[in-house]
């Protein structure tokens, strides 16, 4: 095994275990913390693929901002441990497991089959995931998509302000 494969196995292993922990743990705060670990390790997987900007954005946005907000809300509502999902004896867990395995198989088949039995050595061109490369692509080939996405985000911001705004009397 090459060192790259060992790195991948360690990172992917932690990511998979923490992903299971998110759904398996009872305490919402613990689930959220394990999700932070998952996001953090995913960022390292991106780094190992040469996508620096994507990886650091993953930490900055998901681990650093969104998950802090999640924790904030969980702590504000003071959610205790929940056993409802386990106590209910309906078919939900079974259906969930079957769908999960199905999705896994679908994605894995799309990745493993094209590679052939020997696998492929992945190699990104130097400077592939750098801020310059990403910025250049975003503002040339995908300028329209980028602008439309930013308008969508703007609408989202305005909408959230409208929802949060106090109603004026009159």
């Amino acid at each position: 095994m090459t060192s790259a494969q060992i790195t991948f196995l360690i990172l992917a292993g932690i990511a998979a275990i923490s992903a299971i922990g998110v759904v398996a743990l009872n305490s919402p705060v613990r689930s959220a913390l394990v999700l932070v670990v998952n996001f953090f390790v995913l960022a390292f997987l991106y780094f190992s693929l040469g996508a620096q900007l994507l990886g650091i954005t993953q930490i900055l946005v998901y681990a650093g901002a969104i998950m802090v907000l999640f924790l904030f809300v969980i702590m504000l509502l003071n959610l205790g441990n929940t056993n409802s999902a386990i106590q209910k004896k309906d078919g939900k867990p079974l259906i969930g497991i079957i769908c999960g395995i199905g999705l896994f198989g679908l994605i894995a088949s799309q990745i493993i089959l094209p590679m052939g039995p020997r696998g492929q050595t992945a190699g990104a061109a130097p400077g592939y995931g750098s801020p310059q490369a990403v910025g250049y692509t975003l503002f040339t080939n995908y300028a329209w998509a980028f602008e439309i996405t930013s308008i969508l985000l703007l609408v989202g911001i305005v909408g959230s302000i409208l929802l949060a705004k106090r109603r004026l009397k009159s």
Partner: protein
Amino acid sequence: MADWIQGLHPALQATIRVLLFVVPILLIVPALIWWERRLLSWMQDRIGPNRVGPFGLLQPIADGVKLFFKEDITPAGVDRKIYFIAPALALFPAFAIGGTLPWGPDYGLYGLLTPIANVDIGILYILAISSLGAYGVVVSGYASNNKYSLMGGLRASAQLISYELGMGVSIAAIVMAAGSLRLTDIVNEQAKALWGFVPWLQNWFIFTPFGFLAAVVFIICVIAETNRAPFDLPEAENELIAGYHTEYSSMKFAVFFMGEYAVMFLFGGVFAALFLGGYNLLPLNYMAIGESVPALKGLMGALEGINYWGAPLWFLLKCALGITFFIWLRATLPRLRYDQLMSLGWKTLLPVAVANFIVVAIWIMCTRLYGPAGGFAAGGAAILLLVVLYLNWMNANKKNFPALSSREIELVSGQVPERRGIKMVDG
């Protein structure tokens, strides 16, 4: 020396770089605590610790020994696993934040020793790691199972998210001016001619109008991010006892303490790298001066050498300057109220940073098109336009509260006590 380092395995080289960064910080933290206590006591007209060693220099070591041998109490109601992890979560970002911070020039011997990783995303890395700093506080507040600690954690998470934005946008202006996210590039950019036309001085970003504004916004956001006074609401001692670390004792408390000082020190370094020319002692371009005044060429060469070889020392000096500023603020300003904190972050710092960002964009564009003079004219015009727009907006939204003509209170009906220097108001 340089050849020997280059001959080593890359992993060993990286280890050397990490050790050269982390060990000095570990050694410097006690000195910082001593400096804070002495300086604060001097500013507040007290004596401060002066018994252990000369000038109380050994006091932090004595405190460390005390904390180490103290009984480590774990309260009964805590969430044990998270309670134990929290101090580590607080310490990790404090040390990891310097991963891309250069403490020396990026050429010659220092180029091999610093920064730990000279990556494309240098400043984004620092932002990302500093945003992880919230977890230590939030998680310890939750795990302590104490309502005051929980309040501290809640305040910390809200505060960090609010001030991250202003910080990010103020840095974005600098990144645009430097044209790179890499910290060594940002430092090198500041070694160029001041404002593009004064070759003898260096273009430290704090000397440029937009850089100064960005520096002010950045330093305020940094103080809020590190939970220092006047933004220390998460640990406000008279409201929340000590906030998130109320339930921590012994070494676990010491770890929080250490993390707080390390992160302050390193943010001083980040400020130096972004605004104060990094490792350069003085904003002088020695080579340019030597060329203009041939008589000084030898002296300037020697000064350049001193500037190069003393780089770590100059960088440490700037970090110390930063931390002194932090202590000065702590001694000067009272703690903000929570609503003041939020309105400062969202309604003042963020708009100012965004306006600064727009001005920098206009300035860069016009400098490229019309040269430095055109750039300054356009930047000045943009600032003027923004100020006029802001004043108009203020006028349009003026609230019609009756202005108080006097703050006197009528104690006895009809008789307002006359005071020195205060004129009585009719009606």
